[in-house]
């Protein structure tokens, strides 16, 4: 199983190219770091990989085939700000089970407590809400997970807890993880290789 981005270029409307001809690939079970200066298009690239945007040029392929746009999308993205990634008018339980019926194993692994499920998003802390967003994305049908500054807003203990859980799941299911982060220590700790987005494209 391999996810590859082939010659991806992107621009927003009529503005200049944000990046040009980026080639990137990740195999299943692999942890790859993605870094680069802020504003170089890391988040946009992630959004393209996860199917939120279509590239201006190039294509995203899974095992060499284009990804089906209907049904469950096998590449899931977890954002930096969980509060912006949930519907504020839905109770947590509804948000949690939006993509799949989250099983007990995942809940326990991520330390999600029963009491949170009946609350509103604004009543949970960032760390608690982020766990919900991660659980939501960890369906068995997810083959690649993109963590776009996923634990940047969290304290060290929560960060270590969450990554330990995600590592366990990734290992069991041979899921590929893309870690987008500015934090060198974290990327170094988690990833087998690191790609600098501003160096892989054409200037």
């Amino acid at each position: 199983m391999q996810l590859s981005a082939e010659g991806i270029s992107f621009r927003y409307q009529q503005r200049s190219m944000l990046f040009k001809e980026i080639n990137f690939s990740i195999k299943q079970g692999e942890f790859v770091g993605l870094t680069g200066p802020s504003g170089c298009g890391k988040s946009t690239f992630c959004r393209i990989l996860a199917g939120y945007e279509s590239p201006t040029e190039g294509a995203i392929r899974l095992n060499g085939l284009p990804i089906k746009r209907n049904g469950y999308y096998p590449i899931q993205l977890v954002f930096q700000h969980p509060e912006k990634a949930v519907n504020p008018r839905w109770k947590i339980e509804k948000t949690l089970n939006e993509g799949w019926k989250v099983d007990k194993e995942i809940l326990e692994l991520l330390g999600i407590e029963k009491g949170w499920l009946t609350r509103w998003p604004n009543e949970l802390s960032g760390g608690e809400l982020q766990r919900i967003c991660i659980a939501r994305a960890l369906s068995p049908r997810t083959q690649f997970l993109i963590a776009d500054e996923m634990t940047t807003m969290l304290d060290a203990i929560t960060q270590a807890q969450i990554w330990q859980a995600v590592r366990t799941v990734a290992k069991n299911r041979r899921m590929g993880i893309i870690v987008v982060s500015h934090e060198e220590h974290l990327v170094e700790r988690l990833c087998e290789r690191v790609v600098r987005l501003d160096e892989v494209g054409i200037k």
Partner: protein
Amino acid sequence: MPILEVENLSISFTQYTSLFKQEQHQVISSLNVALEEGEILAVVGSSGSGKSLLAHAILGILPANANITGKISYDGVVISESMQADLRGNKIAFIPQSVTYLDPLMKVGKQVRYSHKSGDSISAQRKVFERYQLKQGVEDLFPFQLSGGMARRTLLSTAMISDAKIIIADEPTPGMDPVVMKEALSSLREFADEGRAVMLITHDIDSALKIADKIAVFYAGTTVEIAPVADFCGDGELLRHPYSKALWKALPQNGFVPIKGNQPQPNSLPSGCLFGPRCDAANKDCGQIQPEMVELRGGMVRCIHAT
């Protein structure tokens, strides 16, 4: 004399559990911190430990259902609600945590200039943008057109060009790349070195260590330790509280070891020491009463076993 002092602060929220039933949620309890001129105090701790609430309480921008007790004084004077409105934005600048605090309908250059009260605000804003590597064109963009890191730099610019005596920076650095982050941190350091003061609320211990003088560690709505920066080193053996040690050891560069459990919810705080249920050293004495903050080796700690 501290320029800003918070004594015995407690905050609770009134919430409706059903149509006619209210409940009080205690979110901050008996919290003490002091900020001296020329100093950077870093406030670190888990999310939900009340770090941001402390900032909001000082500025007087908590929602209407908050009940606040305790004393907050600025320059030796206990501040009232009307004084708070006067201080904020003038004497106390705030760098909010969420980039959603930007006005979505105003160009960011204009928003930044708004906080500059005297003199040529356009050139001041351009200078500060240049310092944080925001291109000239950025001032004419709307917040939704900015990347996360750019929006943070915009928020930082707003505080840096004000004439405030104190900056309260609530998580100013996440999402910034290392070069810009260094610039942001060193400008906070310069701000303090001018005889002003900074309260840096962050969970990024790494950057706190680079610039702060003292670090206050928060857990479940109160301070568990206040320590000089130099104590955060090695295996954390100089730290006083078990939570601070656990936090130190969970950093990716120091072991990446999480401890079990979660920070308790405000409505189900344990009796006694708030960290007790997750602490390896806890015994039955820890479950009795919440320990007082005591002085120890040039710092403060809230633990009966601390040595």
